[in-house]
């Protein structure tokens, strides 16, 4: 399948007509919030008023992606989100507690359902086609990609809109902080991998892709394969899974020009990446992406956008122009539960 267009709202300057790579936006602190565009230019202002932040992010990035692809009625709309619409969930829960289950209004309940963004996009487009939402923690986006891949293979769909979306809210950040997920004290995203404190930095984002079954002549990249594996028992098993994934594509690590790895700055979390850099990835250029977008369950959607942009701009990861970027492998894991592999190649 081919990546025909993207739409990405993230903590970096990734949305709209921007250069790639843009100058890195720096953050001090453990929370990276999205840089949001002027939504009035993308969504009907009458509708914006009722939408929560994550719905606006999701709908705007989806619409921008479709616009770039020149498609107004995709054959399928698939979203992946671990947390869904947290802000609306939090609003309804808070009011329910405050008001003792009385005098509640429906808006935040309606918009709290996990399929809201996919549904809103379908509604705006009057799109009656296949519509699905995966909510499987750190592999929500990968499940969506696999669904898209199967739809394109089955022949019922020629182009599919796929997105990965998650938001941070004050409530979720407070709760996840209590679990010890984030670095305490001063931390700059530029120094994420040098900061020795335990934990990572929180991120969020919404990245959509228009995937086509046929090459269009102007695709960013070809998406060769996606795979996940669940709770591997050892680093050796991770290595084995990566080799099996590549071999199913009839290639080996020697064919991979660049690895985009999901290191998040937490020593324990990053052990497996360090291990791989010393073994399987030894002879390959490895770059990291979470200093740009922070850690969140659907960050692999940001990584896919990043990989596709690199391939399109023939960027070797060190900011240099290269003709040699043939195949890019994304390897990420979220809390050592879901590990994901995505392989792209130049068109």
């Amino acid at each position, binding site marked *: 399948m081919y990546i025909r267009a993207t739409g990405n709202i993230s903590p970096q300057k990734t949305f709209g007509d921007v250069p790639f790579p843009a100058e890195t936006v720096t953050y001090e602190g453990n929370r990276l919030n999205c840089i949001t565009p002027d939504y009035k230019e993308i969504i009907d202002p009458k509708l914006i008023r009722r939408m929560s932040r994550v719905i606006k992010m999701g709908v705007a990035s989806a619409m921008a992606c479709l616009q770039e692809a020149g498609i107004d009625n995709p054959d399928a*709309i698939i979203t992946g989100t*671990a*947390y*869904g619409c947290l802000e609306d969930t939090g609003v*309804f*829960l*808070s009011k*329910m*507690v*405050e008001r*003792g*289950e*009385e005098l*509640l*209004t*429906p808006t935040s*309940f*309606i*918009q*709290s*359902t*996990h*399929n*809201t963004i*996919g*549904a*809103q996009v*379908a*509604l705006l*487009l*009057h*799109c*009656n*086609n*296949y*519509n*699905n*939402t*995966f*909510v*499987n*923690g*750190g*592999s*929500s986006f990968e*499940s969506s990609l*696999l*669904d898209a891949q*199967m739809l394109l*293979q*089955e022949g019922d769909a020629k182009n599919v809109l796929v997105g990965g979306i998650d938001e941070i809210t004050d409530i979720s950040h*407070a*709760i996840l902080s*209590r*679990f010890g997920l984030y670095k305490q004290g001063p931390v700059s995203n530029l120094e994420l991998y040098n900061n020795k404190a335990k934990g990572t930095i929180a991120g969020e984002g919404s990245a959509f892709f228009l995937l086509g079954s046929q090459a269009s002549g102007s695709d960013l990249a070809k998406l060769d394969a996606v795979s*996940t594996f*669940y*709770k591997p028992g050892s680093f050796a098993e991770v290595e084995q899974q990566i080799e099996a994934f590549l071999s199913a594509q009839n290639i080996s690590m020697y064919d991979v020009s660049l690895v985009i790895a999901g290191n998040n700055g937490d020593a324990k979390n990053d052990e497996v990446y360090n291990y791989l850099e010393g073994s399987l990835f030894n002879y390959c250029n490895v770059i990291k992406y979470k200093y740009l977008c922070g850690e969140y369950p659907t960050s692999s959607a940001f990584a896919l956008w990043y990989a596709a942009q690199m391939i399109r701009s023939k960027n070797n990861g060190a900011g240099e122009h290269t003709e040699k970027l043939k195949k890019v492998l994304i390897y990420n894991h979220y809390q050592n*539960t879901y590990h994901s592999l995505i392989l792209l190649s130049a068109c």
Partner: protein
Amino acid sequence: MSKTVFVAGAGVISGIGNNTAECLNALQNSRAGIGKIKYLATAHKDIFPVAEVKLSNDELAKLSGFGPDISRTAMLSLVAAREAKNSAGIENFASLRTGFISANTVGGMDKTEDFFAQFMARSTKGKLRNVVNHECGKVTELVADELGIRNYVSTVSTACSSSANAIMYGARLIKNNILDVVIAGGTDALTRFTLNGFNTLMILDNQYCQPFDANRRGLNLGEGAGYITLVSERVAAGLKTELLCTLSGYCNANDAYHQTASSPDGTGSFMAMEGALKMGGLKPSDIGYINLHGTGTQNNDNSEGTAIKRLFEPHYPKMSSTKSFTGHTLGASAGIEAVFSALSVQQGLIYPNLRFETKIEELPFAPETNFTKQAGLNHVLSNSFGFGGNCSSLLFSKLQA
């Protein structure tokens, strides 16, 4: 690559029973599971009847094997998924490529809402173990680990059609030769969050619901879980246990009309049913029974009824809403109803639509009111439609002799 996907096992827990046999017995004897709220701690206890699973959290913990701190959603899921797995009797389960695709709408919300009251008073308060499994996906993982399923685990959430989409996805993972066996369906426990949410929409009936009745007033919520075990042709060929039926068609469409309301002409429901028939290579007149979405709200039953009229006129299959027994179990409903539909086509069972009195004037058909056995029942359609316009239909067909 498997062209046909077989249903090899089924498991269910709902307001009418803790396993398949108990639920079937209640369906045969017109025994609804709806009643006054007993287990859910809510201010609306005496107002809205619901179909609770008749077990406390402690009793469910014993039955499932989970600790009492685990979300009720996960406990319900494990009970039904384990029954689905065991009833399929797959001897070499561990050596096959197995998947667990489970749907739910609010994950571990039952525990989160307990946490929230304390957390709101002070953000350092509230037991973290009550929110650690809040995410929908966490509920699935807990159960997958208990079932010993590692190859592929995923969670779907498309409101009230969630588990139909989980079942479709599972079937496609088999057809695309990614997995051999998939336990697919869904789970949802009653929560204050959903009860209050539906109350704000003013679609809850404060009496027992009457789906497809001219005088219907709304829906009763329910809880439970339902799963079917899907297997490839190769796995089916090696089974000693009897297969239930085939999953011969499915279709997912979007109504694209309104975030919560269904279109008056039932666009999404029509497309879902039509698509499932097309995939199964069937004509409308081939369908013997429809397990309706049939929530009992004015809007759903009008929209679904209109879609059925458009597609089936003039040959209407028998039909009923088993939500008149189980209540609307949201993310679990299509899983529970898939189990009922698979048993229906396997054994030729037509379930009654309880408390039906008056036919809807605009519709030329009425639901079944008695439990009957029907010879020659070959194809059963199961409908599930949800918020966000998500409409899905599943088609179950009798095994070829």
